[in-house]
C-alpha cells in the first residue's frame, strides 16, 4: 500500500464505515463496502481538488445502495421475517444500538428513503441543494423526505429528543 492511500484510508475510513453501516446496518458488510470503495478509488486516477471526502462519500453511498438492491440482501430480509431464530444475532445488534442511542436506533429503523435524507442532512451535514445533487432528485423532494422522516421518528422519541431533531 502506498503512503498516500494509507493516509487517505486513515483519514476517511472510519467516517465511510459509519456511513455504509447506516445504509446496510451490518458492520461486516460495511467493511466489505468500504474496502471495495478504496480499491476502486486506488485503481482510478483521481485528481485532488479539495473534494476527496465528497468523492469517497458518493462512492460509498452508491456502493451501499447497490448492495441494498442485490438479491442476496432482499433474501436476507425475507429470511429474517421467515426465520426469526436465525435473525437473533441481527436483533441483538439492534438492541445494542438502542442501548447506545435511542435517536440513532430509531433512525436506523426508518425506510431507506427517509433514513438517507436524515443521514445526508445531519450526519454528512450536506445542504438541501447538495443532497438533491447527490441523489439526483429535486430539492423539494429532499425537503419532503426530510419532513416525512422527522414525522416518522416522532412516535419513537421522547418529547425532548424530538425537539432536538426538529430544531437542528
Amino acid at each position: 500500500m502506498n503512503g498516500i492511500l494509507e493516509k487517505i484510508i486513515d483519514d476517511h475510513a472510519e467516517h465511510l464505515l459509519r456511513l455504509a453501516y447506516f445504509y446496510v446496518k451490518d458492520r461486516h458488510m460495511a467493511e466489505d463496502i468500504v474496502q471495495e470503495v478504496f480499491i476502486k478509488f486506488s485503481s482510478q486516477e483521481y485528481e485532488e481538488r479539495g473534494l476527496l471526502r465528497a468523492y469517497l462519500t458518493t462512492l460509498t453511498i452508491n456502493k451501499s445502495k447497490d448492495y441494498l438492491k442485490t438479491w442476496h440482501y432482499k433474501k436476507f430480509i425475507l429470511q429474517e421475517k421467515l426465520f426469526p431464530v436465525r435473525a437473533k444475532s441481527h436483533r441483538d445488534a439492534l438492541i445494542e444500538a438502542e442501548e447506545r442511542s435511542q435517536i440513532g436506533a430509531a433512525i436506523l429503523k426508518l425506510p431507506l428513503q427517509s433514513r438517507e435524507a436524515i443521514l445526508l442532512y445531519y450526519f454528512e451535514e450536506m445542504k438541501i441543494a447538495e443532497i438533491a445533487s447527490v441523489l439526483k432528485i429535486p430539492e423539494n423532494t429532499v425537503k419532503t423526505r426530510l419532513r416525512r422522516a422527522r414525522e416518522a421518528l416522532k412516535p419513537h422519541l421522547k418529547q425532548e429528543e424530538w425537539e432536538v431533531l426538529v430544531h437542528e
Partner: protein
Amino acid sequence: MNNVKKELLKVAGDMATSKERVKERIQGQRNLKPKKPIHFIVMSAVVTLCIVGFITIQLLDGGTKQSAQLFNHTQLEYFEDLERIMWATQDPPKEFVYGRYEQQLASYYFAQSLGFDSTMKEQEAEKEKRYNELQNLQEDPKFKEIFGNRGLDSYFEKYVEPLLPMYVAEKKLNGWYQEKYPTFPESMVHDIAEQDAIRYFNTHFTEEAKSFQEELGLKYYSNIPNGSTYVGTVVELDSNAFFFVEGAIPEDLERLSKAKIIEKYKNATWYPIEDGALVKKGDYVEVSSSSSMSEDTSKVERYGLQQSMAVIDPTVTTKLKLQNPDEVAVFLQQVNWQQGETSIIRPPDYSFMLDGVRVDVLVTHAKTLRLHVLEYGDVKLSEKSSEQLKGLLGI
C-alpha cells in the same frame, strides 16, 4: 457538531477495529504475487450438460422465438405484487421486481436444462399447497388489497397457476443441490443453486433479458453480486466443499490442528467446490465471496457463497532462520505482550521458530511490526522497537 450526528456516532460505535481490518485486507491484496488462475470448467461443464435440455426446450417451443416465451408482463405483474407485499410499499423499484422475476425464470430454465421437469401430479400438489397458503393469508390487509375485487380464485388462476411448473422445477433443483451440498444450511444451498441458475441464464439469455429490461426502462441489471476478496488457505476438503481460513498460510497445516488454525485466525468458511474446480488441502487461495452465514452465531465456522476462486503463490510469508536466537529471545521477553485472544486476517510477512514456538511477524502500514504467538497473545511494537527487531532478524 449537531446533536443528531452525535447520536448517530454513538449508535455506530467504534469503527477503529473495522478500519484496521479494511486496511489489512487492502494491503494483503496489494502484496499478492501474480495469480495462477484455476481454469474453471464450471460453466462449460454445466453448459455441456445443459445443451440437451436446452435443445429440448427449443424443440418443445415448436419454433417459437425464445425471447417471446421467456418474459411476459402478466408474470411480471405477479412479482410486482410479491415485492409490494415484501417491501410494504405501493411502488416497489422496478429493478427489484425484475430481479425477482428473472431469478424465478433462471431457476426454471436451469432446472429444465438439468432434466428436472414436472408431472401433472406434482403440479397439482404444488397448486394445492400454494392455494392453501394464499387462502390462509387472504384476510391479511396487504393480500386483500392485492386480490382486490377479483378475489383469490381469479387471482390464483391468472397469476399462480401458470407458474406451477416453475415452482416444481425449482423445488427439484433445490433438492438436488441439497444432496450435492448436504452439510450446508438450506438457505445457503438455495443461494448456491440460484447463483448457478443465474450464471446459466446469463450465458443463454442475455440478449432476451437486455431487451426486456429496455422495454421496462431499466438499465442493464445483473443478479450476480460483486464479492469481497479474501486470502487464506484451504484447511480441509469435503466431497463438494472446501474449508477456507482467511489469513492462514499453508505452513500452518504442518504444525496446527484444524481447531487451532480456526482459533488463531477466526474467519473460517466452508465454500462449495464448483464442478471441475481443482482445489486441494493446503492450497493458498484468493476467494471472492458475496455472502456467508452461520447457523449458530456462537460458532466461528461459516458457510459462504463464492463468485470465484484462484490459487495464488503460497510463498507470501518469508520463513526466517534465526542467527541469534538468544538475542531475539531476550528482546521478546522485554516487550509488552497483550495476552489473550487476537486474530490475524492476513498472512504474516515473516515467521520464525524460537524454542519450538512459532512467532508470526506482520509489517503494518506504518512499517512497524506486529508479533503474534498462538495461544499467547500479540504485541504492536513502537517504531523504535520495530527497527531494533528488524535489525536482529535481518529484515
